[in-house]
Structures are given as structure tokens and as C-alpha cells.
């Protein structure tokens, strides 16, 4: 696969999209690095699909600048999109055509090389046995796979998949997850939007969270999840003594004891768990558990999008 040289496949700066008085995307700053699976998370109505449509040039922006695969948009839109495969919302096809015919129709505006890839992409997504059937008879999972096949017609550097797990059964989800990781292993970048936090956590290397049209956090999964306070969970043979000792420790901001006897210790910035361990052991307290208290992506997502408060 030939690739362009830009380190960022998507670079959006101050992108704003308004529909009348309603601001759907508000000063979006999004940077997606090359060669990873990047999750794009947000509650329903947060602006995920609008952002994808803007990125694909399906909607004009109201303000801001962006590049796609290093090409400025909209000036070099056709150059950029020549190496982008995308499914926006759900994959739609002509139901009266077969899978192969749909791909032939889709390949025509993509160029001669795309037409030559039809058989290969059908085999790649495991639809060789059903490619001659009308798409009207396909299950949702088969349509998703055919949608992926359509994306692959251009040998894409970037795949943009909008809610790719929608409508898939567990086996289909597992298969889609494998496909996405395979694409990354081949050097492609996959940008997938989802509201399935667990899926993004399992599949993606990087993540951005959008809420009410604004990007509220982005980075690697670890950065996004661990961007909360610096806390550790401590398990010891004397929780009460440990809690009292740690409360007075200069590297500790707060201490709370859980119902299971574990202590949650919030550390000052830069302080490490080793400091706490040493302090406890030196006082003869046996430590059997010492682990970072990281938020799950779901907790982080809810924290950032304030959905708990809204509920």
C-alpha cells in the first residue's frame, strides 16, 4: 500500500459547522495520527456523524481549516478522498443489485484500479459465496462487510467507519474487530465512531471524545483514560493504620477507604506508588495490593460528557 508522508491523517483546526442558529460542531480541534485505530466517541447527537460528513466534504464547514491525508480541504478534496474509504451511518446499497454489481457500480467513479480489486475485496470480507445474491437479501452483518469491501476498493490509507458494530451479532463484532486490527497492521489508519465504549477500548489505540459539538479530550487511550487524578489503590493487612499513616504523608492529597478494606490514595502530581509502598513497609504494614486506580473509558466518558449529571 502506497502512503502519503503526512504524520497526521486528519488535522482539523477550529472547525465549526452551523445549521442556521444551531452550532453542531464548535471549534473542533482533532488530530488523528497515522497507522492506528482511532476511536471517535460521543453520545447520540454529539456531532460524530456531522464531523465525518464534514471531513468527507459532504457538508461545507462554516469556519476552520482541515487537512485529510495531508491534503488541504476542500481545495484538494478529490486527491485526499482517492485514498479514503468511508461508511457514513449505515452502509447503503441498491437492493436490486447483487453484492458484486453494487461493488461494480461503486468502483466506476473510483477509477479503473478499483474495478480490478472487486474480486479481491469480496474475498477479503468473506462474501465470495454470496456476492452473486441480491443485496436486498443480505443481513445487516453482510451489508457491513460489503460496506467494508466498498471501502477497500480504493486501497485506502484511511478508513472512516461510522458505528461499524451496529447490528452485528457477537461473532460479527469479533470478526469486525479482527478486520480493523488487520487494517492497522497493514499500515492503514482506521477512524471509527462509536457510542460503544467497550468496543473502542478493545479496538482502538487512540481516542477522541466529542460532546455537544466540542472535542473534550483526545490522545492515546491511556492518555484519555488516565487523564484524571493521580490515584492508587492500596491493600494492606491493617487498613486503618495504613489510612492514618498515609493521611499525614506529604505526597498524599486525599485518602478514602473502600467497603472492601482497600484504600484509595490520591497522590500529588509526580509522586509514585513506590513512595507509598516504602512508607507503609517501613512502618511494618504488609502491602498485598498496589495498583493505579485508572478510570475505565466508560467512567472517563461519563465524567467528561457530564451524562451522569444530566441523567
Amino acid at each position, binding site marked *: 500500500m502506497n502512503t502519503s508522508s503526512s504524520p497526521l491523517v486528519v488535522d482539523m483546526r477550529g472547525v465549526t459547522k452551523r445549521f442556521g442558529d444551531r452550532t453542531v460542531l464548535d471549534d473542533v480541534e482533532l488530530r488523528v495520527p497515522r497507522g492506528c485505530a482511532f476511536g471517535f466517541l460521543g453520545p447520540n447527537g454529539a456531532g460524530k456523524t456531522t464531523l465525518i460528513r464534514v471531513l468527507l466534504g459532504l*457538508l461545507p464547514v462554516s469556519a476552520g481549516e482541515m487537512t485529510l491525508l495531508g491534503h488541504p480541504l476542500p481545495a484538494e478534496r478529490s486527491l485526499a478522498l482517492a485514498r479514503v474509504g468511508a461508511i457514513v451511518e449505515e452502509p447503503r446499497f441498491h437492493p436490486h443489485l447483487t453484492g458484486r454489481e453494487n461493488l461494480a457500480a*461503486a*468502483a466506476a467513479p473510483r477509477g479503473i484500479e478499483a474495478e480490478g480489486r472487486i474480486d479481491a475485496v469480496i474475498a477479503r470480507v468473506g462474501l465470495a459465496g454470496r456476492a452473486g445474491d441480491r443485496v436486498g437479501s443480505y443481513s445487516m452483518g453482510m451489508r457491513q462487510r460489503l460496506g467494508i469491501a466498498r471501502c477497500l476498493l480504493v486501497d485506502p490509507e484511511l478508513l472512516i467507519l461510522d458505528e461499524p458494530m451496529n447490528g452485528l451479532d457477537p461473532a460479527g463484532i469479533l470478526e469486525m474487530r479482527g478486520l480493523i486490527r488487520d487494517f492497522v497492521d497493514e499500515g492503514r489508519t482506521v477512524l471509527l465512531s462509536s457510542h460503544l465504549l467497550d468496543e473502542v477500548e478493545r479496538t482502538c489505540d487512540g481516542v477522541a471524545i466529542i460532546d455537544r459539538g466540542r472535542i473534550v479530550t483526545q490522545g492515546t487511550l491511556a492518555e484519555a483514560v488516565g487523564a484524571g487524578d493521580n490515584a492508587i489503590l492500596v491493600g494492606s493487612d491493617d487498613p486503618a493504620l495504613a489510612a492514618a499513616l498515609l493521611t499525614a504523608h506529604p505526597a498524599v492529597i486525599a485518602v478514602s477507604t473502600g467497603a472492601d478494606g482497600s484504600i484509595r490514595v490520591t497522590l500529588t502530581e509526580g509522586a509514585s506508588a513506590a513512595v507509598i509502598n516504602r512508607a507503609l513497609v517501613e512502618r511494618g504494614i504488609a502491602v498485598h495490593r498496589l495498583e493505579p486506580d485508572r478510570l475505565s473509558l466508560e467512567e472517563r466518558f461519563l465524567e467528561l460528557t457530564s451524562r451522569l449529571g444530566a441523567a
Partner: protein
Amino acid sequence: MNAQMVRSMISAEFLKLRRRRALFWWSLVLTSGVVIAAYTTMLILHASDAVKYGPAGGLSNYGDLVQALTAFCGVASIMIGATAGGGDLGAGVFRDMASTGRSRFSLFLVRVPGALLLQLPLVLGAFALATIGAFAFAAGTPTPDAGLVVHYGVWLLAGAILDLVLGIALASLIGSRATTVGILLAWEAIAVHILAHLSFLGGVRDVLNSTALDQLRPGGGQEILSMPLAAAVVVLIGWVVVALAAGAWRTHTIDA
């Protein structure tokens, strides 16, 4: 975009249309089916009472048959055009096509030759059947000469192509096949005839597509309104240009 890609895109449009079985068979019924039904009926009537009913072929029946065929071919053309213009939008596929980065003008314009590839063989086939029947079943009565056949053919084709273009353009404009077919059938079957008879409209009636088209009909242009042939051709070209421009504009500006 090179010629090979344009050919591929036209072929893809043709593929989308020809694989719609209902559209194909109904279009065939409305073209060749009408001719076959008409000749079959006239042959049976002639066989049952040769004095009362003349031969199925010949000049007189030929003119009547082509006139009827023009109306039916118009219906088929509107159906094909509306499907070509609204098919991608209706199926939700237009978004994918637009996200290829290909010019939306080209996505719109290839619909015209793609639709013509389906329509023209059907219309020309029906016209050929009608012409063959006029000679084969003439039974010694006068038959049309070559000039008249060409004249009828040009008139039939002009009307069919205009209806096809109107179907493509209007469906691209409003995004609905069914509504397009309804509007255009109402326009062609009812509205233009009413408008043509409203004398207070004066010369405005000259820009009606039916008025202009009637000038092309052999022996036409005398019944309601008369205008120079060149003016009629200009009016028809104007309809095609305006329709295509409207369809292309909408395809270019629509949110995908």
C-alpha cells in the same frame, strides 16, 4: 477523469437501470408491447370483418399508431428518467458516491447516457415494429415513404428524449422517483393541454414543451398553436438545457 472512467460510470448507471426488472418489463410493455397489442387487435378486427375494418398496416393506421406510441413512450421515458435521476438518492447510495471526491456534475451527467442506453433500444425497437407492421400488414393500401418514416422517428425520439431528461432532472431535483413520475404525467397528460388552450396566455404558450414538440409532428403545428420549426427546436433545446442545469445544480448543492 478520462474517457475510460466516463464509460465505466455510464455502464454503471445502465447496470442500475437494466437490473430493475419491473422497470424494464413495464417499459417494454409500454413500447413494443403497445405496438404488438395494437397490431394484434387490428389484425383480429380485420380478419373478423374486412369490410368494416381495414388492414392493420398502411399509412393511416401507421400515423395513428406512432401518435399513440409517442404517448406511451413518453410514460416509459419518464419512468426510466425518474429512476435514473432518483435511484441513488432513494437507495441512499449517493452519499457514498459523493464521498469518492468525484465531481457531482459528472455524477449527475452520466445519468443521461446511462438512461438513454436503456430507453433508446426500447423506443427504437417499438418504432421499428410499428414501421415493419405498417408495410407487412398493408394489404395493398398506401404505405409511408422513407421521408415520412424518418419524420415520425425524429418526432418520436425528440419527445421521448425530452421526457427522459425531464424525468432525470426533476428526480435529481426533488429526490423522489414516485413524485417525479406523478408530476410529469400530470404535466404531460393534463396541464400542458389546459395551458395550451388558455388564449389569454398568448405567446407564453409557445414555450410549452408540448407546443414546441407538436411542430415536429408530421402534419402537426396546426391544431392549437403554430410556430416556426426553428423556434420550436430552440424551445425544446431550452427545456433540455434548463432541466439539466437544474438537476446538476441540485446534485451539486444537496447535502449528502
